[in-house]
């Protein structure tokens, strides 16, 4: 995508402000990653625990630039037909039926089987033109007039083979379709890949990308996020609940609560008209924050202590 078309991305400060206006509160590092990705035209591989805003980052970017967000959700077994393109075989079949008569004309006067086959081959070619092509996300992202945000979500869930395909495409933003030729992106999209680290991403793919690791946010940042997403919550309560979540993250948990859980919890507390972090209230809403029974028990055992600390944070 061309720099002059998107003044929203002209400086790190503008990106931060633009994101904030859309409710996405980010660290300078995240804004720097977006800035560099745009300036240097490199994909960004975003890693970090679930729920820290990896997917949201790409969405917000698309919103900020008013370009389409094209998302490819990865899973085991994802292949080219689902990621790149597929032939519309239904349409192909339908057309062959409709054109059946033409077939007779075409073969008329052909000498011998070899020639018929030869002619049929030529005839067959028209069924492999763009009209019969069903673009999937990767191809679609390259066909957008003004560019696009291509989000390749949870790439760690795909197979290694798929990574090499991505690598090929991300190196020159073109796809070769044997029957048609090479399709080159009109405007190269801005690409975000996300990974929850369920396995290592291949070295080669990592090297193609800027590597952005999003950790859990600082207290200060998380309070701003809560303020932005749940603006109606009381300031003191906001402060305390974030402090409490941070102390939970210090515990040895199977799954530490992420930003999404903090927000869900803030919304629950708001709905329950909570004025303060009362122990009973926290106990009964702990399952909003913690998804494993073990973790809930773990937190409950020291709850009084944790809450006292959270309430008394300056």
């Amino acid at each position, binding site marked *: 995508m061309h720099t002059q078309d998107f003044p929203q991305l002209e400086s*790190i400060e503008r990106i931060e402000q633009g994101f904030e206006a859309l409710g996405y509160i980010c660290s*300078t*590092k995240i804004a*720097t*990653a977006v*800035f*560099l990705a745009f*300036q*240097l035209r*490199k994909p960004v591989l975003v*890693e970090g625990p679930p729920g820290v805003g990896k997917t949201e980052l790409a969405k917000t970017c698309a919103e900020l630039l008013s370009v389409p967000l094209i998302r490819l959700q990865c899973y085991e077994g994802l*292949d*080219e*037909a689902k990621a790149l393109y*597929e*032939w519309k*075989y239904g349409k*192909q*079949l339908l057309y*062959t*039926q409709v054109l*059946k008569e033409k*077939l*007779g004309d075409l*073969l008329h006067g052909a000498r011998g089987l070899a020639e*018929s*086959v030869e002619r*049929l*081959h030529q*005839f*067959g070619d028209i*069924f*492999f033109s763009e009209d019969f092509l069903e673009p999937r996300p990767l191809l679609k992202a390259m066909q957008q007039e003004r560019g696009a945000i291509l989000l390749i979500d949870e790439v760690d869930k795909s*197979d*290694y*083979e*798929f*990574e*090499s*395909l991505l690598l090929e495409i991300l190196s020159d933003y073109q796809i*070769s379709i*044997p029957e048609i030729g090479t399709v080159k992106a009109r405007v190269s999209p801005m690409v975000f890949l996300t990974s929850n680290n369920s*396995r*290592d991403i*291949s*070295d*080669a793919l*990592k*090297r193609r990308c*800027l*590597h*952005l*690791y999003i*950790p859990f946010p600082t207290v200060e940042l998380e309070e701003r996020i809560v303020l932005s997403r749940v603006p109606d919550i009381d300031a003191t309560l906001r402060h305390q609940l974030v402090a409490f979540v941070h102390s939970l993250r210090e515990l040895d948990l199977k799954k530490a609560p992420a930003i999404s859980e903090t927000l869900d919890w803030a919304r629950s507390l708001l709905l329950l008209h909570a004025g303060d972090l009362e122990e009973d209230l926290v106990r009964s809403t702990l399952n909003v924050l913690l998804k494993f029974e073990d973790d809930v028990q773990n937190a409950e055992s020291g709850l009084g202590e944790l809450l006292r600390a959270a309430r008394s944070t300056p």
Partner: protein
Amino acid sequence: MQSAITGFIQLLRSHELRVSPAETLDAMAVATTLGYGDRARLRDGLALSLAKSAREEAILLRCFDQYFDKTLAGQADPAPEADPAAAPESPAPPQEEDATLLQEAAGEFPELGEALATPLLQQLLDNDRTELSLAMGQAAAASGLGNIRMFTQKGQYTRRMLDALGEDALRRAIIALEQADSPLLELLKGYSDNLREQVRDSVEREYLLQAEGHNRQFLDDILSRTRLNQLEQRYMDEVRELVRKMARKLAARHSRKPKVQKRGQLDMGRTLRRGIATDGVMFNTYWRKVRRDKPQILALCDVSGSVAAYAKFLLLFLYSLQDVLPRVRSFAFSSHLGEISELFREHPVEKAIELANWRYGGATDYGSSLEDFAELALNDINSSTTVIILGDARNNGGDPRLEIMQSVYQRARRVLWLNPESRRAWGSGDSEMLRYQSACHFAAECNNLQQLERIIDQLLRLNH
């Protein structure tokens, strides 16, 4: 300033971060885009372009703090940090008094006059840190300070740095004052000591920068060639990292290209041709086949007492391999055998190895372990399967059940046996190795990490 980036990358490499030439260019583009003015920003940008994991990022940030402190202050650097006017503590006022005193004595001591004519002493007297650090940077380059590796070289490099700075004039002046017992001696010595201290500091810093990285490489080198059973517990962390690195390297080298043409699609030509028989009506559709050629690895690891010292590392390697390569299934055995793939997936490495040892460790029975293996996996073995067995083949005289090995051998694409014992010991005493070997495509001695890596590398190369 580009040289600052290449220098930084040099440093990263010595800390085992792999940086490709393309990434070097990226890093330079990043620095150009962000500028050197905002240190925190440059730091973020370099981390984004050069670190490939949270661990690498931590290393990079540490190196950045060490290196750019030095570079921003020490080398020709247009960044505002080096501008004395912008520096947080502005330099102390020139010690005019000292300068005047020395100047007055210069008539009496020609050596002192010469020293005062050098830029070095002027900088010291003016306390001009910018000029001084520039000079220090140049001296470092001239004396090849970047090559320092051993602590024994510190003295030597300090000397060379001082020479390159032109300290000899100062030295001669001090000797002259000393011989005349001049009251100015202490004054001049103070400046000289100050200089030496600064030089020693920068030598020390450079030594830490350079040697730390190289020592690591050295250690890895040694570790990868040491017999596994002799590796000490205290190196476990290093070994673990090393093994992970090897496994990742292998995986990167062997992640396969997709077979582009093999997607499942309508075979138009064939459909049309067959349609001729039915007057152009296409009753039957024909599809191109998706051929999935997914080699699979089944790895069996002996964790019995006789190989306990090796097993820990072999399991470690398997764990890492399973982590980076899809379709690796791992099994552990001694008196019986069980699959540990899940266990590897669910637990961190230390815990997983401990559990595998605990569940499957004990006295050896290759026969019944093979039975268990056949039951669990024989049906899944086909012409794209590679079976690796890690063990000493010492069966305490029990039935080796060679026929099971043979049927594995017939089904699999490749059967590979890695034995920690030296070849000479194969077949001696209760070792069934020679018999088992007849049912393997390849058997090798393997008792250090380097051999292990090499063998697995070959294996994967043969695999597709």
